[in-house]
């Protein structure tokens, strides 16, 4: 019964979304937020109804309402874990890794020999399951957040490095010739032509790295952490069958990750407004 109601709700919601997407208000800020939210609410309604209709055990899949209740009850714990994993582990690692990769890319870009040597290696390392070094780095840097930051640094470094080097090669010969006819020096060409031209690539790397940073910080906690942190709470939560707390942690991670990703995407939009992919129509 509840399942039928949920499916009817889903059909109505999709219809509203289609009307909104076709309507004249589709580029309005409120509509752009309302549409995905309604889609998400639909999925939550379907989830809630399915758990009730099929009588799913909370040990396997708790209902969204149970997770929300747990989220409210455990706010203090969740905040402590957030500070430990996101602010201390992931964020410091992300900033260090991104800065190091950016500076390395600019430094090696001046030497054709270094670029030719480092780019294939960087490409290769960026493709590796680097997260596997987590146990090694945890045993080197100890259980606290420093080892998580180290894992994150290594994970985000290579995607950003490779994207930045590729982006710096993006300016065409004709554009560079034009800069030369203006008698522009190396730094002027870099600042006014090559870095702006590289921005879509750099932001691509930065966006990939945001999600890698969270995954790295959480996986690293699985190999040892103080008695706080999202990864710690998740692995002990699965062990003690408090799955609703695990889902509450997942919700925190998802909210954090999308907020950071959204921030990076917002900056990208401001910086690379000229790129065809950013045009609204």
């Amino acid at each position: 019964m509840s399942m039928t109601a949920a499916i009817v709700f889903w059909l109505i919601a999709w219809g509203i979304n289609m009307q909104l997407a076709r309507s004249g208000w589709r580029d309005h800020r409120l509509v752009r937020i309302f549409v995905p939210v309604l889609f998400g609410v639909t999925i939550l309604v379907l989830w809630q109804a399915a758990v009730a209709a099929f009588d799913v055990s909370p040990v396997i899949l708790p209902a969204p309402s149970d997770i929300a209740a747990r989220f409210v009850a455990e706010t203090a714990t969740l905040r402590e874990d957030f500070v430990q994993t996101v602010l201390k582990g992931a964020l410091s690692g992300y900033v260090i890794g991104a800065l190091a990769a950016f500076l390395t890319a600019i430094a090696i870009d001046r030497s054709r020999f270094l670029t030719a040597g480092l780019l294939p290696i960087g490409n290769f390392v960026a493709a590796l399951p680097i997260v596997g070094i987590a146990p090694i780095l945890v045993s080197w840097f100890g259980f606290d957040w420093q080892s998580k930051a180290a894992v994150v640094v290594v994970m985000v470094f290579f995607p950003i490095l490779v994207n930045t080097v590729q982006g710096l090669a993006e300016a065409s010969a004709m554009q560079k010739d034009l800069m030369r006819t203006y008698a522009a020096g190396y730094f002027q060409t870099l600042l006014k032509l090559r870095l702006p031209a590289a921005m879509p690539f750099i932001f691509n790397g930065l966006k990939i790295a945001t999600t890698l940073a969270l995954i790295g910080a959480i996986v690293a906690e699985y190999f040892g952490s103080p008695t706080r942190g999202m990864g710690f709470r998740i692995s002990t939560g699965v062990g003690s069958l408090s799955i609703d707390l695990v889902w509450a942690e997942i919700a925190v991670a998802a909210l954090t990750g999308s907020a950071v990703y959204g921030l990076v995407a917002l900056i990208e939009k401001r910086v690379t407004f000229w790129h065809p992919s950013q045009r609204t129509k």
Partner: protein
Amino acid sequence: MGVQIVLGRLLPVLTILLAIVALWYAAVAPMNIRQSLDMAERAGAAVTPPDARERSNTSRWVLMANNPGEIARGYSLDRPRLPTPVQVGGELWKTTGEMALKGRAFSKRSLIYHGWITLQSTLMGFALGTLVGILGAVGIVYSRTMEMSVMPWAIISQTVPIVALAPMIIILSSQLGVEGRGLPKAIISAYLCFFPVLVGMVKGLRSPGREQLDLLQTYNASGYDTFLKLRLPASVPYLFTSLKIGIAAALVGTIVGELPTGAISGLGARILIGDQFGTPLAIWAALFAAAILAGILVTLIGWLQRKAMRRMGAGT
């Protein structure tokens, strides 16, 4: 001419690799000095400072300066903090080539066996993830409703730590009657793999500029023709770049899927077991085996990319 190209490409890479190996060897001494001194002390050698607690408060460089005779010991430890490249290579050979020569390539102790298990899930997840990614991108480029409602959630899906979902996917799929660990691992790797393909394809399908789209409009091309003759070819470079990231992500997904779930076969399981039993050499060997596997897969896609781009007229 050919020699010049090989030298021009290989020489820089080899130089950097040589520099990395040299750095690695140099790092082994300070990384392992404490352990070397503990071993030396147990073997009855005189060590300065003799007290173990005092040693742990002394910097590695001071320890090295005070005990120059014991530095060499760090290069042949059984369970080093940082093994030498030769030790890792030896362990790798012992668990792959040597076993293959003995005809036990698929024994449970061989990394070829574990690599094969990992490869199967990776390829399954890659196929699934690529399909979902491409279909999703086409839907997003052509349907406003899809773009507005699904794209934010595709992004959010990537921020969910898959490590947490991994045990749940396995519990759920066993509840639904799916046998074995192959499919759940493939789902996890498809989950990590579809996103780069989706993002790259959306960017690629939208890469034709206004003037190119206008040109097709003056040709009175249908939406289907515009897709097939302009958007799809224009997206191919983006697709291959994404596929390279995607297959690597699929491998990461499989290995992450093997890490926290108590799996006993697969390269990720070897890393986990190496961590639990305190055998760093096994971790390093499994890591390098995973690196070699990733290298083969990415090289394969890079080769396909060059073939495809050449057929499409690039680089002529």
